[in-house]
Structure formats: structure tokens, C-alpha cells
């Protein structure tokens, strides 16, 4: 299954190779041209009819994770974060180190040996380390080196009411939806961009948008979903199972309202569940794309993900299916001459 394959693969910012390989294989039969640019973005073009606009659709290949910083005398691995994550989720988790996916664990001091109050204070990244079972520094050095990427070890699980738990659903869900989108034919020209380095500052999208220079752009994402019991409803941002979410405003972009509303209305008209992503913090590739060159109209549609940026992201398959539907419906709805810039 595509989403399982994509989430099992590891791709930290700057080290997206494994994900890129899967995507290249998957999209090849469905596109007219594929390029991998200098940063590692995959840019795939599917030609439409003349007179129709060029639509860039972006989904990022990278995921948040860790990177090996150093190896201490006992052979334990010290690490840094690659992309932003809440360090409180790191303790007591299995991880995979480097290209060969060496199994490791992030442990913590036994509860019996802790001083009073230690349990109230989060363990910081600097205090933590990875144990691969090495006997010595040299032992670890045979398998691991500074700069190696470290991914969460978390398998794809389906559970509950049509839900999925996996790592990296942000943004392999978007990648999977984009791959599926390429399997249909459209009047518009679709340029699918699988971007790199989104999690460390939208780096891939910055250069890809310049190169592609589309008339309009769409970002497919996995986004914050805080609809758990102890959160007030106005802070939910999105609700799980209520359909894909269209962005209005985040830290990086104020999205053109007419474009967002058009997509929202198309969904409603076609009986596809849809919701607005409540204005809040966060950001995605749209932040880089919409200010490229003389400015590119851009919108973002996301699958809500609970516990995002953790080994256990949770999303609804229904929302994912909805995302695929709405992207297709929107592309089919675009008329000749629309959005075309001089």
C-alpha cells in the first residue's frame, strides 16, 4: 500500500533520497517529464491542453527527525533535532539510525533513581542519547557517524474508525495524494513538485516555485489537529474526520480567500466533506511559493493529523480520500484561460 510504503521510508530534511526513489518509481508511468533539481526536489510535469493554466501542486517529502551529533566514550549517540519537534516525546522510544537503519533506543534514568521533582521537568534533547547496544565508542563508529539521520521507528497501523497511525504522515499523506492525482488526466498542465527541506524553512519549495513559475499553486499537507478532549473547541484548528482542511491564514501565508472559497464550494457541491483550517500558527510550502517572483496565487489543503511531529501521527482515511477527491474536482473545474498570467 502506497501510504504504508511512504511512511515506512525515512527522509529527514536534506536526506529525502529513500522517499524520492519511491516517488520516482510511482509517478513515472503517469507524467510527461521528470526532473530532480539541485536541491533534490522532484519536478514532474503532466502536460494539459494549450490555453489552460499551469498548476503547481507541492507536497513535501521530508519529515521531522534527529541527526547524529557525536558519539560519546561509552558508544552512546548524542543527537540534534532535524526539524521542529516537542522534545518531550523523545523519551522511551525506538529509533533507526543512518541509512542502514541501525536499531536504537532513547532511554531514561530509572524512576527509582530520580530525585524528587525530576519527573516534573522534561528531559531536554541535550540530556538524551541513543543506545544501539555498542560496547564502546569504536564499536558505534563502525556503524554510525556524525551527520547520520535518525528516524522514529514506528510502523503503519490502521485502527479505530478508519484511522491510520504512522510516523511522517506530515507530509507523506500529501505525497500520496499527489501521486494519486497524477494518475488522472486534466485540461490544465499539472506540475507536481515533491519538495525537500520543508521542515527546516520551506527551502525546496523556494527554488522549485521559481523554476516552475506556475500560474497558480496548490499545497497538499498534513496539518495540526487538536480536537482532543481537554482542548477548547476554538483551539482545535482542524477536526479529525471532518474532511480535508483549507487554509485561511498561518504564520507564513494569508491565503487568497476567493481561491479557498472556490475549492470549499466545489467540495460542498459535490458532497465531499470539507472544513476550513482555523487561522493559527504553523506554516507550509505556500509561505515560500506565494512570494516567488512577482507572486503566485496559492492555496493549501491538508489532511488533519493529531499528534503531528511525533512517531504516532494519527489521521483519518476518509480525510485522505477527501483530499484526493477535492484536488481532482478543482483541477477539472478550472476553465480555459483562467488564472493565466501575462
Amino acid at each position: 500500500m502506497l501510504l504504508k510504503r511512504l511512511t515506512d521510508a525515512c527522509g529527514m530534511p536534506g536526506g529525502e533520497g529513500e522517499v524520492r526513489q519511491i516517488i520516482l518509481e510511482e509517478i513515472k508511468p503517469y507524467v510527461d517529464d521528470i526532473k530532480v533539481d539541485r536541491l533534490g526536489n522532484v519536478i514532474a510535469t503532466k502536460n494539459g491542453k494549450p490555453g489552460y493554466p499551469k498548476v503547481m501542486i507541492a507536497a513535501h517529502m521530508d519529515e521531522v527527525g534527529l541527526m547524529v551529533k557525536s558519539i560519546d566514550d561509552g558508544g552512546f549517540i548524542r543527537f540534534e533535532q532535524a526539524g521542529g519537534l516537542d522534545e518531550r516525546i523523545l523519551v522511551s522510544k525506538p529509533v533507526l539510525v543512518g541509512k542502514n537503519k541501525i536499531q536504537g533506543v532513547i532511554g531514561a534514568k530509572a524512576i527509582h533513581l530520580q530525585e524528587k521533582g525530576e519527573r516534573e521537568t522534561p528531559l531536554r534533547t541535550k540530556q538524551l542519547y541513543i543506545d544501539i547496544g555498542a560496547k564502546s565508542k569504536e564499536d558505534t563508529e563502525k556503524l554510525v557517524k556524525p551527520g547520520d539521520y535518525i528516524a522514529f521507528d514506528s510502523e503503519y497501523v490502521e485502527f479505530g474508525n478508519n484511522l491510520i497511525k504512522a510516523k511522517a504522515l506530515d507530509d507523506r499523506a500529501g505525497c500520496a495524494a499527489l501521486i494519486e492525482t497524477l494518475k488522472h488526466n486534466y485540461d490544465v498542465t499539472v506540475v507536481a513538485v515533491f519538495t525537500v527541506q520543508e521542515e527546516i524553512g520551506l527551502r525546496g519549495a523556494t527554488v522549485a516555485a521559481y523554476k516552475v513559475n506556475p500560474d497558480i499553486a496548490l499545497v497538499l499537507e498534513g496539518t495540526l489537529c487538536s480536537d482532543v478532549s481537554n482542548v477548547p473547541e476554538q483551539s482545535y484548528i482542524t477536526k479529525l474526520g471532518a474532511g480535508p482542511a483549507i487554509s485561511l491564514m498561518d504564520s507564513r501565508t494569508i491565503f487568497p480567500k476567493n481561491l479557498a472559497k472556490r475549492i470549499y464550494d466545489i467540495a460542498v457541491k459535490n458532497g465531499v466533506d470539507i472544513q476550513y483550517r482555523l487561522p493559527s500558527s504553523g506554516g507550509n510550502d505556500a509561505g515560500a511559493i506565494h512570494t516567488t517572483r512577482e507572486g503566485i496565487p496559492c492555496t493549501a489543503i491538508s489532511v488533519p493529523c493529531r499528534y503531528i511531529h511525533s512517531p504516532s501521527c494519527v489521521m483519518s482515511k476518509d480525510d485522505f480520500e477527501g483530499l484526493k477527491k477535492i484536488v481532482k474536482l478543482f483541477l477539472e473545474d478550472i476553465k480555459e484561460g483562467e488564472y493565466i498570467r501575462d
Partner: protein
Amino acid sequence: MLRSLLKELVEAHGVTGFEHEAAKVVEKYFLPYSDEIKIDKMGSLYAIKKGKADNPKKIMLAAHMDEIGLMVKKIDDKGFIQFTNVGGVDQRTLLTQEVIIHGKKDLFGVIGSKPPHILEASEREKSVKMEDMLIDVGLPKEEVEKYVSIGDSITIRRKLLNLQNDMVAGKALDDRAGVAVMYECLKELSHMKHDCDVYAVATVQEEVGYRGAIPATFEISPDIGIAIDVGFGSTPELPKDETADLGKGPCIGFGANIHPKVYERLVKVAKEYNIPYQQDIYPGATGTDAWGMQVTRGGVSTGLISIPLRYMHTSVETVQISDIKNAGKLLAYFIVSLNGEDLEEMLCY
């Protein structure tokens, strides 16, 4: 074989008070090396291997098969589950863990909480309290209530992880590693002659105060009782003299909870058979089944063997397989060393 036992043992679920699933695995592996299997009223499992002597003395081995875990407290209106801990759980090890809720059927869930972006800056400086966490099983309340009720046990979902140098990591290695030691011991004894009856007991409820070991010791009334538990393995942040290194052999405990003659004999046997061992000292309570065993009935001569284990009471507890093997061998040779021995004399102060 040992690795497959360990895998099945730690992947089995058995929170304190709910050990039956773990007990099934113990029974399956212990049966071929025992004359009799018995389960007592508390749920502890005895694998009995008869000795050759006419009036055999009794040696009891005890390793606990319960694990720390969580328990369902409430199902809220949105179907999220609130929980509390059973045994010593560090709340910091719980966020975004995968769990299994053991209700009418096993339900998969994820431990969530308020996401960091909506927290006040001061809240982010603190660890999330267990009462502020929720288990998400992805079902509405009515559905959850069909399968889950208050008091159901919850365990972390974790496979046994293979690390380098024959180290393994997982949940519940405290003290299923000790259970595996008893397995190794019984296996060794199967091709040795021993006078004493051996009772290998997988005890229940150690994590809340060795409650299973006490009635089991009463029931068996052994001449010598040896607990096998886990000890603190060395890691960078812990002082060297409070820990033992993984791979350098099991620790033989010494202190008030341990009969000095039992300690001496264990050391002697280890030296004689070149079994690597380390020493562990306990000026007072050991916090193990040995503490309960020692004061049962008129008193029991006790010993304590521990397997060095890193990250105790997390779901990535780490041990070295060779330490388990060596501990099993040590116990088997210890038991055989008692052949023809007058225990009264040997244990005399």
C-alpha cells in the same frame, strides 16, 4: 530459543494483577523442563522439577512476571480514555506512545495530550502530567464502552528490539528477563542430576510490593529462596558505583536481605565454573521478591541474582542476553552444588 522466549515473554501483556497472558507463555516454555506446573490462588506459576534425594530439600527460584502499566480510569464524552498508573511509571515516558487496552477485546490506541502550540510558554517547561494525557482509540464513546470499562489494564505496544552485541530492548524486561533466567536454569538442570526439588516460580504483583512472592513462599516453604530480578545497568548519567555493566555477568546480591552463606556459595560456584559475575550491595531493602520471601513463615535463607538492565521502567529497557544465560547457568550449578550437602549445616551462622 532464549531469544524467542524473550520475545514472546516481553510482547505478552501482563500488568500487575493481570498476569495470565504472560503466564501462558511461561507455561509453554517451562513445561518441557518441569515435572509439574501449578498456578496458585494469586496467579503465580510454579514449575516444579523433582530432585533425586529421598527427602528432598526445596529450592525456590522467584522472578516476577508482572510489568508496570496503566489502568483505565474514565471514558470521556468524546471517547478518549483517561488513565492512571499501576506500579512506578515515569509520566515523561508516555507521550505519543502506542498502547493496547485490554478490554473485552484488545484495542489499539495512542497517548495524546494538548498539543504544544496551544500551551503557554510556562506549561511547555513542565512535563505533561498523567492526568492531562488521554488515550485516543479513534472511536466514539458508545463504541469504546462496548469493549472498555473502568479498571481494564493498559500496556505499551512494543516489540522486542534487537540491538548490537546481543543486547535486546523492550518493555517488561523487568522482570521477564528474570523469568528467562529460570528457563535457562531449568534447561541446564534437565541434563544434570540434582538432589533438591526445584520450584521455579513466576510471581505476580511484585511491582506493587512483592505481593505474589509472599503467599507463594508460604505455600512452598522452601529451604532456600533465590529471587532473580533486574538491577540498574550503567549509563552515562549514572554513577559507576550505583550500577553494573551489561555483558559482565549477573550481579550477586549481598546485604541483610541475603543469607551470607547463600551469597558465598553463589560466588564460589561462579568462580569454580568461570561464570562472570558482578556484585551488588544492599544495606537495607532490596525491593525484590527476596525481601518478601525472607520473612515468610519462620524465615527463609534467601539469595538475590540480578540482571543489569538499562532504562528501568521505560518501554525500552535494555539487557544483554549473555547475562541471562550466565545467570541461568550459575543457578543450575548452585543447585547441583547442594547435592549431598547438609543444608542445616551449610546455612548455619
